[in-house]
């Protein structure tokens, strides 16, 4: 009989520590499934972020490194340059990739480092308790923008994916979302392409995921998915950017 689905070897059989309705668990699984499908588990090296997914290596069954907040792409550069035959990816939130690590992000992309990036955009700092992120929407309330983000005071949501798309060293950028199962499957295809690009030595690839954070959006899990579909997507349109 044909086997349609088996346990994902790259994912440990463990309950996660994430809040109900959080997108991290889905993103971890998609990466693990892609790694299995590409048969690269034994040569994959993941870089776990600082933030809610800090212990992502507790869930992934392959080699991983921690990186200081914002430095994931510099750490990944060091690993990939000395081990060009390994598959190296970073997993980073919006604060990590687009605030404290903007410099590392732009320059790794501009050097065309042959790396894959999974960028979790949930428009908020989760681990530290719901502060304003570089991608927080105008009007969105956080603990450091209690009346909602104001452009005069806080500036605008940063569209780092569009910025990176301008760089000649960048091979592929796509923005995806988790708001329906069909969108989740699209997200998986995007992640797979980002890994395949690295296998084919094509350079820097990044997948931005609009990922729900019900806890710090003050919504229930269903409302949070609807919010990514109805509100967040207007600021961060889905689709291939490069």
């Amino acid at each position, binding site marked *: 009989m044909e086997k349609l689905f088996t346990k994902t070897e790259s994912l440990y059989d463990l309950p996660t520590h994430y809040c109900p309705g959080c997108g991290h668990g889905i993103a971890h699984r998609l990466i693990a499934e892609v790694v299995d499908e590409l048969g690269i588990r034994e040569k994959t090296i993941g870089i776990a972020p600082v933030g809610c997914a800090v212990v992502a290596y507790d869930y992934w069954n392959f080699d991983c*490194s921690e990186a200081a907040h914002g430095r994931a792409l510099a750490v990944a550069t*060091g690993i990939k340059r000395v081990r060009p035959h390994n598959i190296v990816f970073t997993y980073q939130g919006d604060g990590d990739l687009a605030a404290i690590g903007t410099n590392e992000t732009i320059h790794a992309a501009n050097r065309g480092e042959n790396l894959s990036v999974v960028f979790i955009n949930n428009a908020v700092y989760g681990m530290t308790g719901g502060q304003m992120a570089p991608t927080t929407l105008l009007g969105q309330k956080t603990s450091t923008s209690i009346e909602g983000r104001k452009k005069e005071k806080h500036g605008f949501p940063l569209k780092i994916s569009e910025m990176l798309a301008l760089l000649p060293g960048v091979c592929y950028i796509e923005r995806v979302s988790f708001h329906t199962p069909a969108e989740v499957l699209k997200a998986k295809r995007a992640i797979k392409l980002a890994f395949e690009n690295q296998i084919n030595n094509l350079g820097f690839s990044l997948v931005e995921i609009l990922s729900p954070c019900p806890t710090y959006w003050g919504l229930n899990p269903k409302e949070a998915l609807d919010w990514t579909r109805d509100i967040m997507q207007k600021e961060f349109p889905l689709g291939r950017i490069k």
Partner: protein
Amino acid sequence: MKKDKILISGNEAIAQGAIDAGCNFYAGYPITPQNEIIAYMSKHMADSGGVSIQAESELAAISMVYGASAAGARSMTSSSSPGISLKQEGISYIAGAQLPAVIVNIMRGGPGLGNIAPSQSDYFQATRGGGHGDYRLIVLAPASVQEAYELTRLSFDLADKYRIPVMILGDGILGQMMEPVELRPKTKTIPQKSWALSGCRGRKPNIVKSFFLREGALEEFNKTLQKNHQIISKNEIRFEEINLSGAKVVLVAYGTMARIAKSAVAKLSSNGKKVGLIRPISLWPFPKTAFNSKDKKLKYLTIEMSAGQMVEDVRLAVNGRNPVEFLGRSGGGVPTEEEIINKVKKLL
């Protein structure tokens, strides 16, 4: 047979020492007075199959070194004082993740942007860990271009042996001056690193991290770091001593300052004065055992290109048994031979 020597600067000797030690990853950012290192690595690393990257910042350079070391490379970064301040984040993570790495600090005057004159005012930062958390680095201070070459080679072996960051602490004079150097054959065997990230083929996944959230876990881990520190403190003390027998005044100086102190000792000795010198080579671990004189009248005179930093370690080592005097200049000032001789004469 007479060995061939080449005339190179201290900075170039450090770079060549790294390459000869099997360094296969370098990342740096330009800053005076250590620019010859990044230029030398850019020019020569590829010839030996290594990688050299000019990073976008000091933070990125040290993080690249973290990554390369995590992947099993022999890796190095270099900078000068303000840049070393920026690197402290990464150095703390390297120490916390028990990774080997070599960091070169060719010190200049501070604080702030300071100046580009030679200085020894980063001694506290270097020997106390420098970044956040309970950790130390091995700190080695060369006093000649040949020694810069040798200690750089040694630093890679120590980093791998103890899985600890090692700092070469020089100053602008050492970095810039040229001396004849005898090179040795390249290190052939680099230790196997079973903990390194290489892909988990045939083994369980390796994780490189410094994060210990469970209650008590970090305390437990830090005890292993401190045990390593104790072993290093026992095994890796290095110093040079001159004319200690019968000395009434013993100078204490490291690096460039020790060379000037050494000529003061030679002049004073030729005039019949009983003066000696202790030159710490390992600044951490500090060579406490060198300060073991039974003569209670002996005076130590610590000389530094700083407002007085190593003198605190000398006082801790002497522990009140003898007087410890200090002579120093800060902000790029270098105590002269004459100033040293005058000070010694007052103490005799």
